[in-house]
């Protein structure tokens, strides 16, 4: 009952028999106060980047097949990828590919027993985030340069 008083401002003296004991436990999930460790954000991002890339596979097969069909279709794909939505898509894909690959290599190293001390795991987790961010910045810069070149 000590815990129940935390969850309920006015705890019932005796809960009805229909209320299961688990219902009396404090339900406290302060989403805005929870701070995930960097190892958890890498794990979460590994999942998100993987899920983002799955629908890209059929899209890639379509792009491959259609762009090979003829010069007009090839030109259509080139201009689609150079459009603003196309560039935004490529940037998200760049982040997903870079992050998933870097985090995947970190996992493969864990499998061989490398970097499994928590301090090392934390350090390499930051490296994974940094590699993904660097890849996005690099692609963004190359897009800006090619855009400036095309405009000149």
């Amino acid at each position, binding site marked *: 009952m000590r815990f129940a008083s935390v969850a309920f401002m006015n705890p019932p003296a005796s809960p009805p028999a229909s209320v299961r004991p688990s219902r009396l436990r404090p339900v406290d999930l302060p989403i805005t106060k929870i701070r995930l460790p960097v190892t958890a954000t890498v794990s979460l991002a590994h*999942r998100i980047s*993987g*899920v983002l*890339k*799955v629908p890209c*596979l*059929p899209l*890639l*097969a*379509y792009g*491959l*097949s259609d*762009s*090979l069909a*003829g*010069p007009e*279709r*090839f*030109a259509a794909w080139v201009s689609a990828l150079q459009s603003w939505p196309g560039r935004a898509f490529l940037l998200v894909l760049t982040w997903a*590919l870079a992050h998933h*690959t870097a985090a*995947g*290599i970190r996992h*493969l190293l864990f*499998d061989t027993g490398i970097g499994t001390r928590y301090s090392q795991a934390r350090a390499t987790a930051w490296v994974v985030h940094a590699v993904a961010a660097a890849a996005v910045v690099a692609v963004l810069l*190359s897009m800006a340069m090619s855009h400036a070149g095309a405009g000149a």
Partner: protein
Amino acid sequence: MKASLSGLRAWALQRITALALLPLMAIFVGRLLLWPPATHAAWREWMQTPWVQAGVVLFFVASALHAWVGSRDVVIDYVKPLGLRIALLGVIVLTLTWTVVWAAMAVLR
């Protein structure tokens, strides 16, 4: 397929396909970033080179298997109703299989 691709086998398959995808991704992404094909003719010619054709087919097979293990884990973690779970897994298997066939037909014809 489901029975044979679970537990330790799925784990091993995920690692093996990851190791295969590392050089394949590096070669294809690197080549497309550094020397993007300027014309349809150049693109077609590159895609008709035997080692590129083999690489593309290998890339799609490895990607589909890797995506299958990963998306199966995600579906099992988050989708609890059994009917919906089986339906989703079925859609994913069919889509990935069809993707591999489609990509192979595109480069091998």
